[in-house]
């Protein structure tokens, strides 16, 4: 069928708009940007407001401000509706607004049935554009944030506690240094006026990407863009970060508390992120060594499968948050990244052995690299597994937004292009270039930390016993090597700190606060 003149003109107009939008994006950082994923006929609509600011933008002495501000938007009232009103209005729609805050990126998300899009969006936009900033909402959320820091993080979630201590060690004196929730002292210092000022400075057009996916009406994106254009036309420059500091030798922090199980996290900065050409090779190395909750992980095989030490053992070449199922969550992009090993809780009696085992495996990885067989297996795995990453509307939008953050049109499509071109030697070169085993930060949550310190410093043998009297001979022989594997530790690089001392104020607590 021939096109009419009007059809031709319409298509030209769309092309011009797309060209202008791409051009504008490059030329004017003060403007809103958007990601659209229209799916006609889909009953759901996904809204996502991505903010290119996070806890690293907290002013000094106000650590926790971004988290408190954005929590107040997502869990507080608007100028015209109280939070109670919003809860009542959202309930029949099965709706909510979720918020996540990381170091340099934050996101507000909501999924809604298209039947309710109009009603939902009317409230959603008011929450972000005209927040109520009520004193009672502020007090409620500030108390919750303080309770998380004072009680929950230290006493109820040892694995996360270990990861946060590792982060403190990695980023001491760096804008990434504090957990997004902040510290008890600094959150106590935050006023409602400071929250309002932070909102005014940071929730601005140039910091925002609007994401829409699903079965929304054709005119909906223009309406959302027009509404959010009411925000100030400015932006926050991307943070200029100092160089990351490598650990000097094996540096330990042992958080001492009463517990039957020991949680361990260890790591060090890496100088690349997802935008680097070397990322893909290093990614294969990371998946080989410790793919998250998959049998292909070497650490999982050695520590859990062969020895039954704990529930799992993983490694990552960038900051990792688990999303749906075991897939990586999106919208946690950072300019600077780190390599880490996560040893899940295990009996206190075996902690010394497993620290040795993990560091020895890391050494073997750096010294020996990946075999051709494993390289081919892990590459095939990643090529297929990543096809499952983006299934929900939220995942589709999230991956698309993260792709652009790192300079890709579509990162998951890039994976399909790049991985087949890599060879084993590329992976081994990346391992040598970015990983090491001598300089590692190690965070341990355990009981009687003093005895662990003594055993580590003295390099005392650390044999373990098994309930299976007929363990595989090769495993037992390797155990003999592991239990005597020497670790070069300077006692001054090892601090034992009572767990209750963490997160009171910024930085690493003193070893003996009493």
């Amino acid at each position, binding site marked *: 069928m021939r096109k009419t003149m009007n059809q031709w003109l319409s298509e030209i107009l769309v092309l011009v*708009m*797309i060209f202008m939008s791409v051009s504008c994006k490059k030329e004017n950082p003060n*403007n809103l*940007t*958007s990601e*659209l994923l229209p*799916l006609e006929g*889909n009953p759901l609509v996904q809204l996502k407001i991505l903010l290119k600011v996070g806890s690293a933008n907290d002013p000094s002495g106000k650590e926790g401000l971004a988290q408190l501000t954005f929590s107040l938007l997502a869990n507080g009232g608007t100028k015209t509706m109280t*939070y109670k009103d919003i*809860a009542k209005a*959202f*309930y*029949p*729609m*099965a709706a909510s607004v979720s918020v996540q805050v990381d170091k340099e990126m934050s996101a507000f998300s909501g*999924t809604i*049935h298209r*039947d309710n899009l109009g009603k939902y969006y009317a409230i959603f936009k008011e929450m972000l554009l005209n927040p109520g900033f009520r004193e*009672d909402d502020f007090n409620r959320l500030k108390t*919750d944030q303080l*309770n998380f820091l*004072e*009680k929950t993080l230290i*006493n*109820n979630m*040892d*694995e996360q506690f270990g990861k946060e201590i590792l982060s403190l060690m990695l980023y001491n004196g760096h804008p990434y240094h504090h957990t997004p929730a902040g510290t008890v002292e600094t959150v106590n210092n935050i006023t409602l006026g400071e929250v309002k000022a932070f909102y005014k400075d940071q929730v601005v057009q140039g910091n925002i990407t609007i994401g829409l996916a*699903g079965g929304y009406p054709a005119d909906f994106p223009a309406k959302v*863009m027009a509404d959010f254009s009411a925000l100030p036309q400015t932006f926050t420059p991307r943070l200029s970060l100092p160089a990351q500091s490598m650990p000097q030798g094996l540096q330990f922090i042992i958080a001492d508390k009463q517990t*039957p*199980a020991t949680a361990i996290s260890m790591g060090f900065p890496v100088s690349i992120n997802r935008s680097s050409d070397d990322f893909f090779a290093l990614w294969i190395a990371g998946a080989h060594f410790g793919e998250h909750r*998959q049998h292909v992980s070497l650490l999982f095989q050695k520590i*859990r499968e062969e020895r039954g030490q*704990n*529930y799992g053992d993983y490694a990552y070449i960038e900051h990792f948050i688990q999303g749906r199922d*075991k897939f990586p969550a999106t919208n946690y992009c950072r300019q600077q990244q780190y390599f880490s090993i996560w040893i899940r*809780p295990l*009996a206190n009696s075996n902690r010394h052995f497993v620290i040795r085992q993990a560091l020895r495996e890391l050494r073997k990885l750096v010294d020996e690299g990946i075999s051709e067989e494993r390289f081919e297996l*892990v590459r*095939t*795995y*990643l*090529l297929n*597994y*990543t*096809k*499952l990453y*983006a*299934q*929900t*509307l939220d995942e*589709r939008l999230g991956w698309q937004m993260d792709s652009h953050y790192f300079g890709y049109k579509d990162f998951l499509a890039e994976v399909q292009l790049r991985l087949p071109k890599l060879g084993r030697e590329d992976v081994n070169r990346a391992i040598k270039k970015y990983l090491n085993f001598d300089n590692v930060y190690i965070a341990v949550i355990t009981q009687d930390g003093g005895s662990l310190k003594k055993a580590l410093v003295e390099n005392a043998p650390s044999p373990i016993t*098994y*309930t299976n*009297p*007929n*363990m*595989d001979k090769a495993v037992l022989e390797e155990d003999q090597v592991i239990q005597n594997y020497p670790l070069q530790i300077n006692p001054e690089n090892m601090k034992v700190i*009572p767990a*209750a001392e963490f997160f009171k104020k910024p930085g690493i607590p003193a070893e003996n606060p009493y």
Partner: protein
Amino acid sequence: MLKLIPIALSLLLLLAVPHPLQSSDVFPYSYKIEELENGLKIISIPLPNPSIISYYTIVRSGSRNEVEPGKSGFAHFFEHIMFKGTKKVPRAAYDDFLTRLGAGTNGFTTDDYTCYFVVFAGRENLEKVVETESDRFINLYYDEEMLKTEAPVIEGEYYASVSNPGRKLAEILRDTAFEKHSYKHTTLGYLKDILDMPNQFEYSQLYKKRFYAPDNSILLVAGDFDHNQLMEFVRKYYSPWERSNYTLVTPEEPAQAEAKRVHYQWPSPTLPRLAVAFHGPAYSDENSDKPALDLLAKIAFSPSSSLYQKLVIEEQKCLTLYASFDDKRDPSLLTFTSIIKKDEDLPYVEEEIFKELERLKTEPVPAEPLAEVKSNLKYSLADELGTTDGVAGALAFYINLTGDPGTLNKLYGLYEKVTPADIQAMAKKYFVKSSSTVATLSGGKAQ
């Protein structure tokens, strides 16, 4: 500025739902049910979702089946054993196959069932998945040494949540509320039984023979495949699987004669927790007791309820407040749980919960919140069914209860018929003080 992602690309992976929500059926996809001669039921849901297939094996055995003393946690332990491979496809080969496939794969155990799933891309891989999965269910092979090595992993899993007071509260609540029924223990089991798992090789063989059989299992496949081709593969590979013909008898829980109370002192500072529970009915898609109670729970304890708004938002006494009336095969607990901000408010929150339950006995709920809850249930389900895996995961739960995916539509049909009078009657019937158990947990001093 608008940036358009190519529409052709955007259509990939996402589902089109063929029926509007006002249809009487809340589960909007057509499905087929077939049964092999050995009793294995197959439920197939072909979906217009390019490439992805969710392959679920549901074994209708969970911690409910742990009726013998000393065997708590065994269903979960056996889930781990199921990954040990066969003589034909040993563990390493099984792992290699799934790794190359890039499958999202795992298992999980609940009170009533154990579920194994393989989510993968490419219908060309379907036959190999059917062959490999059937092989491990029919020909699982492990020796005593393998069992002894796996057993401490369960201890490690126990340790992974040992710092979570929520788990401890659930443990003491169940242990106190139940006298006889196997819902008395959690899915992980008692620590003493976990520590004895290395010595349970013989029992593990008996457990497999009893419960890992086609007449106790259901295959659920959703996504991009052809039904007839699926059935061809299933008949080819699953037909040799032999029936068990075992009938489980779960102990009948005696009626609770008097109110119970239990407290746990957490060794370090933590927010106090409260659980108030009553004995309730089993799941049913024919009797409206449980559906009426489901609606009651949401009307009285959801974020839009007056009690939630008072305790969480206005007075700011509670961090969380919610009701959990899980659907179970046997009579289970109706539980109201709260994390409270100060120890001294524990009695107040408990009193407010009991007051609200008394009010539900004397005052019929208004029509408006009842309609809002029914609306919430439908839209929540629509959200859950947004992907192939969402469809399979949601259906797996309901299939475990009755063996029939139609139960979902029947249940929502019952929801529609529930009236304020029904809810009031259920409150009177089930929220009897002598049937209650209150569990509390509070924190200690900083170490």
